[in-house]
């Protein structure tokens, strides 16, 4: 996944310790950020807190365009700018912080598989509900996305984003379909079922220690549970698994006790 040049680059940053002023950038909390972006941002925040690395969260209306990959969130550490959870995990590993060192190869492969599951099912469903469902897109996503800009720029950017997401959905075969047709909620249900089974009665997914999978699952499930959409179906699917609910509550209490996480 990484080019050789990136590896050398990361090696050279290993020597510098984690600075106090490391910052994470995301869109504006109250009026702008959407469910999928908030979930990704919360995942990275949870991961860094689990590693014990201090991070400040700064909201910028142009965070998406500031990001080197165009995706939220990104962190600014010293001179480096790294975006998305995968690269952030690699980046912290190069600095000597890792949550998955104690896993053996089989477990690590399993962890990667479950993370892929979350990306393919949960994140894709979130994006579909946000942008391809006309009701949600018109009442929530487009108004929020365009809120920092004046007319008509906000509308132009919101429609551009909508077309971009719909093109991606076309590529995976979900294009042009309604919520019922693509069985989005079924997919979410299946994903939660798989996660719930893996978690069982354990406190975390692997051993007694949090890993990046815990951070990712927490980020998405917590956001789904606490974000108001046009319908509560998405949240209902998650709520039906009680061990996932208590998992979210536990992570919130353990790692986010100093911070008010609920938005809206």
């Amino acid at each position: 996944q990484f080019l050789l040049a990136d590896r050398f680059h990361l090696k050279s940053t290993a020597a510098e310790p984690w600075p106090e002023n490391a910052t994470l950038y995301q869109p504006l909390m109250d009026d702008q950020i959407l469910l999928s972006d908030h979930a990704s941002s919360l995942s990275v925040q949870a991961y860094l807190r689990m590693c014990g690395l201090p991070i400040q969260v700064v909201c910028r209306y142009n965070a998406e365009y500031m990001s080197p990959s165009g995706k939220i969130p990104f962190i600014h550490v010293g001179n480096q700018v790294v975006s998305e959870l995968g690269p952030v995990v690699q980046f912290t590993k190069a600095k000597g912080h890792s949550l998955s060192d104690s896993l053996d190869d089989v477990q690590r492969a399993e962890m990667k598989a479950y993370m892929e599951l979350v990306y393919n099912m949960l994140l894709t469903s979130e994006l579909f509900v946000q942008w391809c469902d006309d009701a949600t897109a018109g009442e929530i996503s487009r108004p929020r996305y365009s809120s920092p800009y004046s007319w008509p720029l906000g509308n132009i950017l919101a429609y551009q984003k909508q077309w971009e997401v719909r093109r991606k959905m076309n590529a995976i075969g979900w294009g042009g379909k309604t919520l019922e047709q693509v069985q989005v909620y079924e997919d979410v249900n299946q994903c939660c079922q798989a996660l719930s089974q893996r978690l069982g009665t354990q406190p975390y997914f692997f051993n007694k220690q949090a890993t990046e999978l815990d951070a990712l699952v927490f980020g998405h499930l917590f956001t789904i549970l606490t974000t108001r959409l046009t319908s509560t179906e998405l949240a209902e699917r998650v709520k039906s698994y009680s061990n996932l609910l208590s998992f979210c509550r536990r992570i919130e209490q353990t790692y986010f006790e100093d911070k008010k996480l609920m938005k809206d």
Partner: protein
Amino acid sequence: MGTVHARSLDPLPMQGPELGVQADDVEALEIEQEPKQEVLENKNVVVQQVTIDGLGRTKDDFLSYEIAEVFRAKNLIDVMRRSHEARQKLLRLGIFRKVEVIIDTSRGEDALPNGLDVTFEVTELRRLTGSYNTMVGNNEGSMVLGVKLPNMLGRAEKLTFQFSYGTKETSYGVSFFKPQPGQFERNISVNAYKVTGQFPWSSLRETDRGISTELSFPLWKTSQTLKWEAVWRELGSLGQTASFAIREESGHSLKSSLSHAMVIDTRNSSILPRKGGLLKIHQELAGYTGGDARFLKEDFEVQLNRTLILDSVISASLWGGLLLPIGDKSTCIADRFYLGGPTSIRGFSMYSMGPQSDGDFLGGEAYWAGGLHLYTPLPFRPGRGGFGDLFRTHFFLNAGNLCNLNYGEGPQAHLKKLAECIRWSYGLGIVLRLGNIARVELNYCIPMGVQSGDRICDGFQFGAGIRFL
């Protein structure tokens, strides 16, 4: 009876640089005289008829204003002078390729003994013209492909499509121009454009999509322009090594602004003038007609020229500008001023002066720059009277400053800040004039007063452009 035949001059060039010795004074009209003409000279005459031959799509009523003055002529010399002026007026409309004037004695039944008929024989421009130019901007070159529909509806309206591909910029646009019948200097134009630019000195990419309408009119000796413009600006970093300050400027913004410009130009030429002065004042107010950007921007340009002994010219110029943000938002990098380079403060790299972060120049909210030049003919005057006249040697002294202002402090503090850390440079070089539009310079510069962070170009520096300090 004999005829007086006014020989026509070459048509005025429309646009684009052209090489050649430029005559600054208008050539005098040559008149072929036959011996019988002596009878008519200085005798009172009456212009009975003025005709324009060769009109196709041009509307008659539109042209009547341009030729009206010819009827007022009282004697022959007057007729010729007014005919010549009318010919210039017809040419400046930009709708004729050629205009010839024929003055003849009146014929026909109601012909008076001292009556004259004046005929303008015109050749209209084609309906659709294409053009290919290479353009020289400020230290960049570009290819420009254009399609023009001159005189589209018969009253000198012009529709232009243009595509330009350059070293730093790619752009395309469409423009519609309409003059007021009878007063060509009063005109309105509507433009739509998309411009993409790359600015390596700031590690910045900018794409502007905009529409604007512009109204120009003369007022006493000045030329005034009122403009409304709406631009969707998209900024991004250029390359992975852009500083974080530039990264923070990435994103989209909408600027909707009203601007006013006033120009008084008494120079005999815009490139290497020998006498006269220029005063240009421009202000722009953004935010009150919509959009995200809110600011008030002022800038001015003054230039004075005077010929001294031995064909040398001394020229002094002063530029300045101020950007005042309105409200809480700070200014956007796309609105700020930049300074430095072969077309402003020579001896410094292009726009590489003033506030910067990690080697990326951020521009400033206030600046001033001044230049003092002495232009002389080339030593030993090679090629005098021909090609050599296009070259001039010049000795120059440039100075200026660019900074951000903290608007909490008063104007005293601002003036003090602009007066500290002045950058300046001096040197000499050779200037080549390209037609009436552009000039090319090769200078040897010695920059002084360099502040930390500025990038200099001491020694030889090459510059090409339209607007020089």
